[in-house]
């Protein structure tokens, strides 16, 4: 029983990490048709900015409120980088989908190399607040607090995103734009303004994933974003592009599947099961759990 609880909660922790990366990816793809390979870079930027802020920004630090401030710096940095990327690199290629993918590919290669040039290729120890190094006993299982922190953060982000999409005018524009972008402009709305915002939101969520992922893994390295990105892509496709709720369901499915199979089967088998799940979902329901058709 306690193993089951442990695997469920750590699996949900992993799912939380995937969701934070995938939600932004999904919105960006759903609204702007941009398959963003640079999204992993936003995560790395968030992680490094948090790590840097913990050492340099007055008031910020590795523990307690200082860490919250450091993570906030990371999130702001991620949002800024994402917004600048959209404005400078993506926007001039508006509606040229392949070129946009190519630019984000180049950016992901160059950006990771830039981080490497600045802080080296080796993992750096990440500031971990005291509380996150401990465990909490839940139903007889000892759950790492870092997992719980991730789950709480992802739940909060999910709730905020849903409220934002449901109750604000920009949220309305985004939901409509995911359905039919052309028709939104035909109602007199400059939908491209929403692109920048969606990039910034996605960048912020990914950066938060970077900061909390740093706590979870205990270290930060330039390639960290890239390796999470593949699973985030899988989550986005399974969940349906453009659907935040779909991403949440898919993240939970992927995280739990991976954790349980990797524990009860051979290590690595869980990852393969996730890919099998992707293949099955795509063959049975090409539009994903909750999204519009991705085959268009």
């Amino acid at each position, binding site marked *: 029983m306690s193993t089951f609880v442990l695997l469920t909660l750590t699996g949900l922790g992993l799912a939380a990490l995937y969701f934070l990366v995938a939600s932004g990816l999904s919105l960006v793809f759903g609204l702007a048709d941009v398959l963003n390979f640079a999204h992993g870079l936003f995560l790395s930027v968030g992680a490094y900015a948090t790590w840097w802020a913990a050492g340099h920004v007055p008031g910020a630090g590795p523990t307690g409120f200082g860490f919250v401030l450091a993570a906030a710096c990371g999130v702001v940095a991620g949002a800024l980088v994402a917004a600048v990327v959209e404005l400078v690199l993506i926007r001039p290629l508006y509606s040229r989908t392949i070129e946009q993918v190519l630019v984000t590919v180049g950016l992901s290669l160059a950006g990771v*190399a830039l981080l490497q040039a600045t802080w080296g290729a080796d993992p750096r120890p990440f500031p971990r607040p005291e509380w996150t190094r401990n465990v909490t006993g839940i139903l007889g299982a000892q759950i790492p607090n870092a997992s719980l922190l991730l789950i709480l953060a992802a739940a909060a982000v999910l709730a905020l995103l849903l409220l934002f999409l449901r109750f604000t005018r920009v949220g309305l524009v985004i939901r409509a734009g995911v359905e039919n972008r052309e028709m939104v402009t035909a109602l007199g709305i400059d939908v491209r303004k929403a692109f920048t915002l969606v990039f910034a939101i996605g960048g912020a969520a990914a950066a938060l994933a970077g900061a909390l992922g740093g706590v979870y893994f205990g270290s930060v390295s330039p390639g960290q974003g890239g390796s999470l990105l593949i699973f985030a892509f899988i989550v986005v496709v399974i969940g349906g592009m453009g659907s935040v709720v779909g991403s949440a369901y898919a993240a939970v499915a992927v995280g739990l599947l991976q954790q349980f199979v990797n524990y009860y089967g051979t290590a*690595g088998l869980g990852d393969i099961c996730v890919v099998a799940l*992707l293949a099955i979902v795509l063959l049975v329901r090409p539009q994903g759990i909750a999204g519009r058709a991705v085959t268009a």
Partner: protein
Amino acid sequence: MTQAVPLSAEAPPAATPPELGKTPRRPGWRRLLVLGPLVALVVAALLPYLQLPLPGILDGPFNTYGNLQLFATCLVFGGLAASYDLLFGRTGLLSFGHALYFAAGMYGTDVLVTRAHLPLWQAAVFTLVGATILAALLGAIALRTTGIAFAMVTLAFAQVGAILVARDFGGLTGGEEGLPIDGERLPDFLLGVGNTVNLYWLALAYVALVVFVIARVAGSPTGRVLAGLRDDERRVGVLGLDPYRYKLVAFTLAGGLASLGGVVYVLILGGANPHVTSSELTLSLLVMVVLGGPGTRWGPVLGGILYMYLDHRLTSLAADLPGPLGQPLFVLGAIFILAVYFFPGGLASLRGRVALVSAALGRRRKDETVS
């Protein structure tokens, strides 16, 4: 107020392809163009006899062990990029999993030679057949989706390959360490520093074969259907042809050619390395093709050669370069982004541009002589 315009029942005229309107002007020059690839092949084959040092471009003369290995690597990636272009540039399929078949070629050969103790030629044939069948099977699944979903599925399949190699199931692949190939099982002419030149020739033969095969395919009726798929899939469907079959043919052929490249590369490298399974390799293939010029005969080959050369060269110069310039991927990524904006046709489009410029210059010179 009423104005009657004669009714025309004809369909609007389709655009005439520009090639059809062009007549060959200088037959002598055209003949040279046909011979050009052969001449290039002979020159490339003779390069190892060149003692000339190329300061700044190479360390030492061309035929040192290191340089021959570097150029053998460049050639393999030139061929690999050309096989990827069969998908991306010629059929319009954005696959993110092409590295899988290259890795299958490497690991298949290596495992069969080193673990199963097969002679090299048998291992190579089995690997080639197996990897081609793998490409056909995975392609059959992946091609049921299109566009971005296709890209994702191929990426995910390649990820399975990376996991299988890294986790070292059954102790076959050597995991993170890689798997050095068992030299005892290899023919003598491929062994030892003195025989690196044979590896260079092998790589040259590989790239020549890939270019030849792709040129034949592109010139065939199948190639024209593939080009039609790239430009507008619906129109091919309207003609009553099944796009799925043609795409599967391209996917399988490209996978087979890539795995052959893996067979050659495992010999050059003296073993298999888990790095070739990474999605980063497929992304670099995309960079090579776009830099070189997608859908052209020589562009992807040149792009692959140049990319690997720069990657190697920048790494060896890294210590002398300031800051991020010492990171090859930073420089290559930045060049790539600039290329997407400013040279959408890649290196291959430069010839046309140069021709335009020289034509303009020539005209001006003529004007000057007249006046």
